[in-house]
């Protein structure tokens, strides 16, 4: 972390840096992306077979319509609450199932990342930085606020680009 320890590490060549980063990318794929994809695809399949997906879609349709999304898209946001990767994977799975289109995927993309892993990162960012406990509830709310704004923002941008969303 500190400058002293940085100075002690031997200099890597650019090729070594690239390979090191790419290797990390492989492990991230195996440790985070693939497990999240399996979870998301199984979850969506389960919701579809039981018919719960249709119910969720109907109930939340009016709320999600504000963001240009069908009610079913909320599943992606709920999954994102637990883990960013799960949220994004769920959105991809919904796209594969034909529930949402590419424009709607674009709307969900920044939101799943912004509000994702809400609890996990609360510990790693808010608590670890020692932020004043008095403001913890406010801080917990901010990523959700950001996500809502991002969905509206992307919708506007897509409309400006002439893509109906």
């Amino acid at each position, binding site marked *: 972390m500190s400058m002293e320890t940085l100075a002690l590490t031997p200099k890597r060549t650019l090729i070594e840096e690239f390979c090191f980063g*790419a290797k990390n990318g492989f492990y991230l794929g195996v440790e985070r992306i693939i497990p999240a994809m399996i979870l998301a695809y199984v979850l969506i399949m389960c919701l579809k077979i039981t018919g719960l997906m249709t119910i969720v879609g109907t109930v939340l349709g009016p709320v999600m319509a504000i963001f240009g999304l069908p009610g079913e898209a909320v599943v992606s946001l709920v999954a994102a609450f637990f883990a960013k990767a799960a949220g994004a994977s769920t959105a991809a799975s919904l796209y594969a199932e034909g529930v949402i289109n590419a424009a709607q995927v674009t709307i969900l993309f920044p939101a799943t990342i912004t509000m994702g892993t809400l609890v996990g990162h609360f510990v790693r960012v808010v608590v670890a930085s020692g932020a004043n406990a008095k403001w913890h509830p406010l801080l917990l709310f901010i990523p959700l606020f950001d996500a809502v704004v991002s969905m509206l923002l992307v919708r506007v941008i897509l409309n400006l680009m002439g893509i109906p969303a």
Partner: protein
Amino acid sequence: MTDVEHKLTWRGWLSFVFIVISFSGVLASAGVWSAFDFQTLIGNFGKIGDLGPFSGKGGTGAREGFLFGLTLVPTVMFALGLIRVVESLGALLAAEKLIRPILKPLMGLPGVTGLALVSSMTSSDVGSAMTKQLHDSGKLTDDERTIFVSYQYAASATLTNTIDCGAPLLGIALLPIGAVLVIELFVKILGANFVRFILARQTAQAPTAQENQTNISMGGAA
């Protein structure tokens, strides 16, 4: 952290400009120049005869999830390798140089938070540890820390998370990765200003120094 340069050189600027242009997607259909476009360089999987992609069509459940996840690995490997290279050339220092003077108007933060801010792009843990250090060494007030943390918390490690967690969406989304990153940064700054506004109102209502004092000690214990 990475084995970064400690001084900002032309290599830092060049690598910063390179990564920004590469992720922005502006070179995607620029002929020879598309050789530097991130999305172009990811390339495509070959097709098996007329049957389509190797992962097939119409798969479902865990098996389809696994195969799709597998197809994303090359993207993430390439992206993280690239980021690692530009990081080692000092791209973060160039970003810091650019962001430092506008931190005050942008979020009401002192310029000294610049390095922590750009570090938080690739590592949430480094960002939060640096923030704690800045506060403990008296370079950041309690309120400034709260504002700064509200920026870092949303999308934490924005660059890395958008690439690895968002990998399944990179090929589907209608906006290039650079645009998605800009949108994320924009709402992060907006959220931080929301906190800044609330804190400013709070201070205006109860300007007692005593209360501020207890808050700091509470924060330290947490």
